[in-house]
């Protein structure tokens, strides 16, 4: 039962206008979570909302498991008001993780918006090796940018309005990066998390440049453990569960 437990809320504080950082005190018996995995988190006691919410592992620190969430709908509205010291039910870690790059490979990590929550711990684990493409709407929407700097080799920021970094999308910036004349061409591996349209473009770029890519998909979930078949995406094998065979997939597997 080590993947289903009650966790005490250590901290639940705003890190941005509409983003909170949640730190959970988890039991020792919980398996070690790996970058790309996620948790199903209870957001309230009654039956409305009914289902747990999926949140990526943001970081695991000495304090416990951290989750970075955007306050968006009913569930996160309630979650943000939960007090430190209260207990919530958690299921996890769940799903697949980002496969680590071999030693001679340069990891390119793409984070669109709240997608940073999923890849942050990967950047951390690759301490100093990863080039991060980080996109947000405005400068103000860049989350955890300062913290990220400590772990990344390089961060290429794009914003929609040009208020920080390049004006434009990270896909443009990735494309430009890969198109620079280089010889010999280094070996890359792409990791991406963000909105579906971004993931689709990143997958196309990866195919064009013949680079392996792992992308983290999202779909509405009920169980989180492969039982309900609710969270499928279309892959070459047909409809496949995001919570079990994903959330991290080989980009070439996905049928867009």
């Amino acid at each position, binding site marked *: 039962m080590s993947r289903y437990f009650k966790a005490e809320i250590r901290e639940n504080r705003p890190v941005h206008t509409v983003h909170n950082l949640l730190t959970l005190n988890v039991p020792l018996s919980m398996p070690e979570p790996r970058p790309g995995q996620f948790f199903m988190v209870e957001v309230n006691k009654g039956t409305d*909302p*009914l289902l747990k919410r999926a949140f990526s592992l943001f970081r695991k620190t000495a304090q416990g498991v951290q989750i970075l969430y955007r306050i968006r709908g009913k569930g996160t509205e309630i979650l943000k008001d939960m007090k430190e010291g209260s207990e919530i039910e958690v299921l996890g870690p769940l799903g697949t993780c980002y496969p680590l790059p071999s030693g001679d490979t340069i990891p390119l990590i793409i984070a669109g918006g709240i997608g940073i929550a999923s890849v942050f711990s990967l950047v951390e684990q690759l301490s100093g090796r990863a080039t991060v493409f980080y996109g947000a709407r405005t400068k103000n929407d860049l989350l955890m940018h300062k913290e990220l700097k400590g772990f990344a080799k390089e961060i290429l920021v794009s914003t929609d309005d040009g208020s920080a970094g390049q004006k434009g999308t990270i896909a443009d910036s990735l494309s430009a990066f890969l198109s620079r004349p280089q010889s010999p061409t280094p070996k890359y591996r792409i990791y991406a998390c963000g909105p579906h349209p971004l993931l689709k473009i990143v997958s196309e770029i990866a195919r064009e440049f013949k680079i392996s890519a792992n992308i983290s998909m999202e779909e509405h979930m*009920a169980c989180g453990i492969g039982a309900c*078949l609710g969270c*499928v*995406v279309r892959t070459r094998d047909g*409809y496949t569960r995001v919570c079990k065979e994903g959330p991290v997939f080989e980009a070439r597997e996905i049928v867009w």
Partner: protein
Amino acid sequence: MTMDLSVRIGSLELKNPVMTASGTFGYGEEYAEFLDLSRLGAVVVKGLSLLPKEGNPPPRIVETASGMLNAIGLQNIGIQRFIDEKIPFLRTYDTKVIVNFFGDSIDEYVAAAERLSSVEGIHGLEMNISCPNKQAGWCIFGTDPRVTAQVVSAVRKATPLPLIVKLSPNVTDISLMAKVAEEAGADALSVINTLTGMVIDIKTRKPKLANRTGGLSGPAIKPVAVRMVYEVFKAVKVPVIGMGGIMHPDDAIEFLLAGATAVAVGTANFVNPRATIDILDGIMAYMKDEKVEDINLLRGAAHAI
């Protein structure tokens, strides 16, 4: 105090009345890490068809007030792979395995039932008749009494296993459907399957589910389910398996009092993977508090005047 929790579903004896609802417990193995399957009265697996089925495009799930809609579209690995890959695992547990199945035509129902009947480790069959009937021009097997009678009779002849017929709640008269299924040879009835519903996204102005409509489950439907179990209990002699929104022990007991012989836990598994066990423990605590020595004494108690 000694307590007898065992119940009979036709010729099948369950050690206790707590079952899983089809489609909410995978093939059992997904939950084995969270609870001891041997404690369950029965495991009812995800609905199977003769051939694998791909199911509906996503989104397949949307939350509603105290409930959820699903439009999985009966995705499943097909009976053969189930027998090869899932039954060996399930056979290592001391519980009854009930296979939920369906077909697009009467012939498919019959073929599926026949195929399932000769497999060791399958103790009973549950027919899902809430699915489109291709032969009869996309009506539903579970809503036209004549078609229901036909398909249940055909399956009855095809299997010696205990046969449970799972009724659709989307009907005018659930007692009538229950009587029809009983007469056609059902050993027991599962009441209820999901209510058909829809949610529309006001931004995109389209239904949220790719399939447009889906099946409503969870606490929202419990009052309707309890009422239908109550009505069906009055109408038939065969045992009723009650389900629909059971989250806590109290909910399960409500169904027993309404007339259910056993209960199935569905959506609750998603919220709490140990829900079945918590419910079983809670039923036992209630029996102890209320000094009920035999669970069968609770059955239908709410019908007394």
